[in-house]
C-alpha cells in the first residue's frame, strides 16, 4: 500500500514519519524500501498483511497509526444520502458469489477535468487523473478501501444491473480495450442483455463514462473474495480494485464508500440522485470475542493488567465491554478468535517488549527419523571414501523411465514434467559438468528420493546413487561392500547392478530401504586369535572367483575374511587363484593344526565344486 505522507496527515496528526513507519513495521505492516519523493511528499510503500484489507486504505493506515502513536483518527465528514426508489433495478443471481450490491443513480452531472486538489492527491498515490468522476471513485477507493465503479447510464440497457456468472461464449471488452472470453466461473455485471463489467476486477469499455456522460449508475459491491481472485488469475488482470476485493472486506463498506463518493460527486460534478438500490441478502452478524487475561499472559509471556489491556484495545477502536468482552468493529474482518486479540494487544504494546526466555520444561524423548540418521551416516562414510555429494532436482523430463513415473499436472516448465524415477540422469548430468573442471577422476554420490506409481498410487523411496569416472570398476563395487562392512545390512549383487556408461564411467543406485543399523566395529582381541593360511589353486578359466570366495566363507565358520593375494593369471584353459584366508576364533583354541584341518576341508570342497587343483 502506497502511503503519501501529506495525504495521510489529513486523517492523523504526527510529525516524525520515520518513527511512525518503524512503529508500523513492528506492528505488522513492513516498510518496503526507502520512501519515494512524489509531487512534493514522501510516499512510503507498506507491505500489508494478507488478512488486513482494511489497511489497503489511508483511513485504515491512519487507524493503525493512531493505535501505535496513541492519537485519534480525524474521519472525513460523510453525510448519508436518502434512499430513493427510482428507475434503476438490480439483482444478485447467486448470493454465494456476491454478498452485497448497491447502486446510486445520478442525473444531470457534468464530467470534466478534476479540481487541482484531487489531481494532486491521486498523483501522489500513483493513479493517473482521467476526469472528475473517475477520479472521485479512485479517491474514495484509496481513502476508504472500497472500490466502486461508474457506468454511463445511457449505455446500460433497460437501466438494470445484474450480478451473475457469465455464460459460455460471452465476451467483454474491458477498459483499456482488452477483449476477453468469459467462462462460467467468471462473475460478471450485466445489463438486461450483455456483460458490462468483470465482477470485482474491471469495468467494460463500452459502458464507461466520458465527457459526454450526464447520467450515471454508480456501483459498489462486496464479493466472494475467492471468486474475484480466481477471475483475476484466470484472465491475468490485477487491478487496484481486484487486489482489494479478493480479500475479506466487510459489506458495511459499500454503504460508506457510496456515501463518500456521492457527496463528492454532487459537490464536484453536480447532478441529483434519482434512484438508490441495496441488495444485501444475508446480513453479516456482529462479532464479539471474550478475552481472558490469563490466556493472554500465558500465551504472550508478558504480564498485563486488565487496565493496560483495555487501554490498548481502545486505541484500536475496539469496543471494550465488561470483563473483556470485545465487540469487533466492521472494518476488522481479521479478528475472529481470542488469539487474534492476543496478537493485537502484543503488537500494539510492542513485540520488542516480549521477554526472551528459552523453554524451561525438560526435552521430550527423541523421535528422530532413523532413516534420516542413516542417510547422514552414509554421507559421512562416502565423503570419507573420497566422494563428493550432489543434490539434483527431482523435477525432470526423463526420456526413459525405469519405473512408471509420477507426472505433473500443471508445470510451467517444459523440461519439468515428471518426478524422477532414477538418480541416474541427475548424477550423469553432474558428472558432465564436473569434467569441465576436473580432468582426472570424479566420484559423486547423491542420496535422494525417486518417485513412481504402483498399484497403490504414487510412491517415494530413498535411493543412494553413485557415479565415478577415471577409477576402476572394483572401486565402485567396493563402495557397496563398504556399506555391508559398516551397516548391519546385506546388499546382495541382486540388489543393484553397476552400469557401464562408457569406458571408465560407472553408475549404480541402490535402495536404502534395506539399510540396517551401524555395525559396532570391535578391535582385534588381545592377543589376536588370528591365523592366516594361503591357498594356491588352478581353476578353469571361466570360474567366477567371487563365487569361489563365497564358498570358502560358507565352508568354514572359522574363516573371517578372504582376500585375493594376487590378480588371477590366465594360462591356457586354466587360471591361478591365490587366496589369503584369515581364520579367526573367539575362543583361544585356534591352532595351526586346527586351521590346517579347515584348510584341507576347504580345498576338498573347492576341488569338488569348482574343479580346482592345488598348485
Amino acid at each position, binding site marked *: 500500500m502506497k502511503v503519501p505522507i501529506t495525504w495521510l496527515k489529513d486523517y492523523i496528526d504526527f510529525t516524525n514519519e520515520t518513527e511512525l513507519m518503524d512503529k508500523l513495521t513492528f506492528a505488522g505492516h513492513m516498510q518496503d524500501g526507502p520512501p519515494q519523493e512524489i509531487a512534493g511528499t514522501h510516499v512510503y510503500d507498506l507491505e500489508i498483511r494478507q488478512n488486513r484489507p482494511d489497511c489497503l486504505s489511508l483511513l485504515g493506515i491512519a487507524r493503525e497509526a493512531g493505535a501505535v502513536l496513541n492519537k485519534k483518527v480525524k474521519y472525513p465528514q460523510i453525510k448519508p444520502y436518502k434512499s430513493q426508489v427510482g428507475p434503476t433495478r438490480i439483482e444478485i443471481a447467486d448470493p454465494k458469489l456476491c454478498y452485497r450490491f448497491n447502486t446510486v443513480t445520478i442525473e444531470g452531472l457534468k464530467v470534466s477535468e478534476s479540481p487541482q486538489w484531487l489531481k494532486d492527491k491521486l498523483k501522489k498515490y500513483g493513479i493517473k487523473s482521467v476526469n472528475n468522476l473517475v477520479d472521485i471513485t479512485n479517491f474514495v477507493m484509496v481513502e476508504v478501501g472500497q472500490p466502486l465503479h461508474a457506468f454511463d447510464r445511457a449505455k446500460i440497457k433497460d437501466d438494470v444491473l445484474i450480478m451473475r456468472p457469465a455464460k459460455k461464449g460471452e465476451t467483454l471488452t474491458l477498459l483499456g480495450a482488452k477483449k476477453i472470453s468469459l467462462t462460467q466461473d467468471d462473475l460478471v455485471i450485466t445489463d438486461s442483455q450483455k456483460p458490462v463489467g468483470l465482477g470485482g476486477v474491471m469495468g467494460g469499455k463500452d459502458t464507461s463514462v466520458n465527457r459526454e456522460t450526464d447520467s450515471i449508475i454508480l456501483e459498489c459491491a462486496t464479493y466472494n473474495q475467492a471468486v474475484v481472485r480466481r477471475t483475476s488469475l484466470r484472465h491475468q488482470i490485477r487491478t487496484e480494485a481486484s487486489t482489494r476485493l479478493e480479500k475479506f472486506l466487510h459489506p458495511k463498506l459499500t454503504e460508506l464508500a457510496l456515501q463518500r463518493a456521492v457527496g463528492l460527486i454532487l459537490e464536484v460534478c453536480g447532478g441529483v440522485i434519482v434512484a438508490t438500490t441495496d441488495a444485501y441478502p444475508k446480513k453479516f452478524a456482529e462479532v464479539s470475542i471474550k478475552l481472558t487475561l490469563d490466556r493472554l499472559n500465558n500465551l504472550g509471556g508478558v504480564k498485563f493488567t486488565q487496565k493496560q489491556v483495555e487501554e490498548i484495545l481502545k486505541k484500536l477502536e475496539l469496543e471494550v465491554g465488561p470483563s473483556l468482552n470485545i465487540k469487533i468493529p466492521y472494518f476488522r474482518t481479521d479478528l475472529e478468535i481470542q488469539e487474534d486479540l492476543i496478537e493485537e494487544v502484543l503488537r500494539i504494546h510492542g513485540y520488542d517488549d516480549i521477554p526472551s526466555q528459552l523453554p524451561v520444561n525438560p526435552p521430550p524423548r527423541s523421535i528422530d527419523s532413523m532413516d534420516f*540418521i542413516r542417510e547422514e551416516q552414509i554421507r559421512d562414510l562416502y565423503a570419507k571414501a573420497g566422494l563428493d555429494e550432489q543434490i539434483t532436482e527431482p523435477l525432470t523430463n526423463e526420456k526413459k523411465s525405469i519405473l512408471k513415473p509420477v507426472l505433473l499436472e500443471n508445470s510451467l516448465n517444459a523440461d519439468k514434467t515428471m518426478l524422477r524415477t532414477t538418480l541416474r540422469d541427475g548424477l550423469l548430468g553432474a558428472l558432465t559438468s564436473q569434467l569441465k573442471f576436473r580432468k582426472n577422476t570424479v566420484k559423486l554420490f547423491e542420496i535422494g528420493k525417486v518417485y513412481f506409481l504402483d498399484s497403490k498410487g504414487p510412491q517415494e523411496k530413498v535411493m543412494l546413487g553413485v557415479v565415478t569416472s577415471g577409477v576402476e570398476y572394483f572401486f565402485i563395487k567396493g563402495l557397496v561392500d563398504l556399506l555391508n562392512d559398516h551397516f548391519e545390512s546385506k546388499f546382495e549383487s541382486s540388489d543393484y547392478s553397476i552400469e557401464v556408461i562408457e569406458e571408465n564411467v560407472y553408475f549404480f543406485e541402490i535402495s536404502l530401504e534395506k539399510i540396517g543399523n551401524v555395525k559396532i566395529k570391535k578391535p582385534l582381541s588381545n592377543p589376536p586369535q588370528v591365523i592366516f593360511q594361503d591357498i594356491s589353486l588352478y581353476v578353469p578359466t571361466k570360474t567366477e572367483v567371487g563365487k569361489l570366495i563365497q564358498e570358502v566363507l560358507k565352508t568354514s565358520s572359522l574363516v573371517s575374511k578372504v582376500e585375493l593375494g594376487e590378480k588371477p593369471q590366465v594360462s591356457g584353459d586354466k587360471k591361478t587363484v591365490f587366496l589369503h584366508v584369515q581364520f579367526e576364533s573367539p575362543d583361544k583354541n585356534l591352532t595351526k593344526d586346527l586351521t590346517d584341518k579347515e584348510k584341507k576341508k576347504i580345498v576338498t570342497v573347492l576341488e569338488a565344486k569348482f574343479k580346482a587343483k592345488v598348485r
Partner: protein
Amino acid sequence: MSFMSNLPQKDFEKDLESVKDLKQLEELRIKYLGRNGVINNLLKGLGKLSQEQRKEQGKAINVFKNKIETELNKKRSMVSKKTVINFDTSLPGTKPAVGDLHPTTQVIRKINEFFRYLGYSVYDGPEIETNEYNFEKLNLPLDHPARELADTLYIKEPELLLRTHTSSVEARALSHEKMPIRIVVPGKVYRNETANPTNNSMFYQYQGVLVDKNVSMANLKGTLIEFVKFLYGPDTKTRFRCKYYPEVEPGAGLDIECTFCKGRGCSVCKYRGYIEALGCGMIHPNLLKMCKIDTSKWSGFAFGMGLDRLVMLQYGISDIRRLYDGSLTFLD
C-alpha cells in the same frame, strides 16, 4: 653376598653398544641367549653350588636374562628405525582423497546441531502430499489465497500435490505423535515457478515445532534469537516483529540486520536494512484442534525458514539453480 657381580653385565653392555644392524643384533642374541649361550652356561654352572647359593644365583641369572631380553628389544626397534632417507623430501605430499558434502547438507547439519542441543528430534515426511496435510490441517481452507493452483504443483493423481512447505510435516507430527514434542524438519519443497536466479521450482525449507505445557511467545523469541546468534554470530542485530501466517496466531517475523550494508540499505536487503530470516508464531488453535490436540492443556510454537538463500550467502553462490543442477564442483 651378592652374585650379581659375578655375571658378565659389563661385557653385555659393551657388546650391545657395538651393535649396528639387525644382523649383529641377532648374533648378540645367540651369544647370550642361544642354546650354548652365556645364560645357559651360567645355568649349567649352578649344579656346583650349595642349595642356598643355587637359589640366590639362579634368581640373579633370571634377572640378568630378563634385562638382556629387554635391552635387545629396545635396541631392535632403534636399529630397525634407522632407515636412510635418500629421496627428495621437498616434493609435495600425497593427500588422501576426501569428499565434500553439498553446501545445503552442511548448512542443515549446522542448524540441526543447534536444535538437537535444545532437545529437538529430526523428523521427516513425504514430499508427495495430500490437501489435508499440506493445506487443510494448516488452517488453509479451500478458498485461501495460498491454495491457488498457480503456486502449487499438482500431480496427475487425484487430490495429490508436491508439498509446498515443510509445514505439512508439522501437521503430520501433530496428528500422529504424542505431545510434548520438539521436532525440526529439513527438506525439499516445490512450487510452480519459472526458474530464475532467485527462484527455483524445488528448494529447501527448515521447519521447527515445539508443543508443551505453558509455552509462550517469550519462549519462541528466546529460542529463535539464540538460534540466530548461533548461526550468524553473537553480535547479530535482530528485529522481532508482528507478521501474518495462517498457521500461527499470534504470528511473528524475525529479521536480521543486513550483513552487507549493516542496516543502511542495499540491493541485497532490497533497501530495507534487514533480511527476513524466519517466519514464526504460536501454533494457531484451529491447527491444534484439527490435529486433535487439547488446547487447554497444550500450546506451542512453530517456525520456518528457507535454506537456499542462507546457503547461497554463506558459500558465495549467486544463482539458486546452480545449487541443484549438478554444477557445484569442489576442487581438491
